[in-house]
């Protein structure tokens, strides 16, 4: 207990509400209101409509939604495989190599997303690997941006799991592949699903790199929101944002359910 008097506590709480409400609650509430607003020229909308939400899930916006989900799933899958592989392999590598891997996989967090996008444009616009103009440049940029979170989450998970289990399994004659598949990966499952959720959430909301590299036929939802608001269609833009948040939540819930199913199978075995 920090504040003992009743009036003092009331004062602190009032101050808390005064800071928290406009800073955190108001922006979230206002988007929800805007998504369903028909005509809005005063404090509150004069009329309500679901027309914006309908338009936000139809036509080009629908295509963008599919593109966003495909990009998020593809980039996250690549990031999880590469990140988990690097984290596990770095664990048993010589010290200098481990530090190098650590540095390389932590670096993308310090590089602005627009610069990652610019690098993709400069590197893959001509030459042996031509990605510019295809959807792969978007997926590659997203994978680079989220792989660092996959790597650090799985590394943290490895710190918490006991390496003796893998050693014992190996000493009992299990092959390296079997140790990996039956002991190490199942033990890392919580970190891997956590990393997947984080990667998907980040990828679904990514703007910086995407806006640098996206080809016309592979426009993600956040870029669509920007083009809409840029043209002054802010209410439709909010509706699309709400659709984006709901879609992200749905995808994350499905990932959570899959995780639950796998864990249940493990328990029954």
């Amino acid at each position, binding site marked *: 207990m920090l504040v003992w008097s009743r009036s003092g506590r009331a004062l602190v709480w009032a101050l808390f509400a005064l800071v928290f409400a406009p800073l955190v609650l108001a922006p979230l509430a206002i988007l929800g209101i805007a998504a369903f607003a028909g005509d809005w020229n005063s404090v509150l909308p004069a009329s309500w409509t679901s027309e914006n939400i309908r338009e936000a899930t139809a036509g080009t916006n629908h295509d963008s939604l599919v593109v966003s989900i495909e990009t998020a799933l593809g980039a996250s899958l690549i990031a999880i495989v590469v990140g988990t592989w690097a984290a596990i392999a770095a664990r048993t590598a010589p010290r200098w190599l481990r530090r190098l891997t650590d540095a390389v996989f932590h670096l993308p967090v310090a590089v602005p997303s627009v610069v990652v996008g610019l690098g993709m444009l400069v590197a893959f616009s001509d030459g042996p690997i031509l990605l510019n103009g295809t959807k792969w440049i978007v997926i590659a940029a997203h994978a680079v941006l989220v792989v660092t979170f996959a790597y650090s989450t799985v590394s943290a998970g490895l710190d918490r799991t006991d390496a003796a289990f893998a050693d*014992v399994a190996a000493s009992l004659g299990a092959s390296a592949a079997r140790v990996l598949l039956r002991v190490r990966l199942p033990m890392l499952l919580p970190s891997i699903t956590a990393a997947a959720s984080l990667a998907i959430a980040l990828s679904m909301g990514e703007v910086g790199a995407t806006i*640098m590299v996206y080809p016309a036929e592979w426009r993600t939802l956040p870029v669509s929101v920007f083009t809409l608001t840029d043209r002054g269609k802010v209410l439709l833009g909010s509706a699309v944002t709400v659709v984006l948040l709901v879609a992200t939540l749905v995808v994350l819930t499905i990932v959570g359910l899959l995780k639950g199913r796998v864990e249940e199978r493990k328990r029954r075995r």
Partner: protein
Amino acid sequence: MSATLTEPTSAAESILAPARASKARGGASRALWVLPPLVLAAGFFLYPLALVVKQSFVDKNERVGLDVWRDVLNSPSFGDALWNTVKIAVLSTLGCLVVGFFLALVLSFVPFPGARAVGRIVDTVLAFPSFLIALAFTFLYGTAGVVNAAADKLGLGEPLVGFLYSPWCVVLAEITFYTPFVMRPLLAAFALVPRDRLDVAASLGAGPLRVIGQVLLPEAWPALAAGGSLTLLLTLNEFGIVLFIGAKDVTTLPMLVHAKGAVTFDYPGACVVAVVEVALSLTLYAVYRFVFSRTGAGRAGLVA
């Protein structure tokens, strides 16, 4: 006695010894296993980054030299962008530290019914895209926004005309979005402070401010330092918020990279700005890693 005590461990050792020995033997092959992900990271991240640096020295007519650098560094838009970037990042980080410290303090030590739900809302904001805040701000503080409309109804005129397009609005938006990044490690650090210590300090006559200054702040420094430097790094690189607010006078370095790279297709110019930006954030990142390793902020709940 000692024999019976050591026996189980030595038995375990003898079981594990072959595994450890085979581990030591496979040194070279184990090093090979790290190569595939490293090669991918090099190809898709380090190589493009190196090309950005190289491209900054080659102008549009394929001439190699410092011409592009001279042009960009001397242009007023670059100076403005650099100054704006640093100013907005520093002000936002200071704001996040103050607001985050206060909110975490109340949630931890003056809890109210529903404090947990508030904590969960804060966690959710972390997973949201940042442009969402900027979009919400256009409805709240725009010329025809809620605040202006409400003030007009109350007969106060329209106090916030132009606020949306000022650097202050960007700062406020970034404080909104990044405060959770400061709160999370702080809440974790505060959870480790024994409540008795506060009670003892209070029973000895220390007022709340003195308890904060002498008991809580020393515990909070590592978390504040780690959360603050991460926030500074992220606000330096912030793009979505500035883009969506779309103020013409508020250009930051990432905005300049976007304008040159994706709008006017001036790749060399964009690369120069990008190199400056990356140098700036890498320096900060090195500081962050230093603080992070010194204070064990990893335990305080920060990943990255």
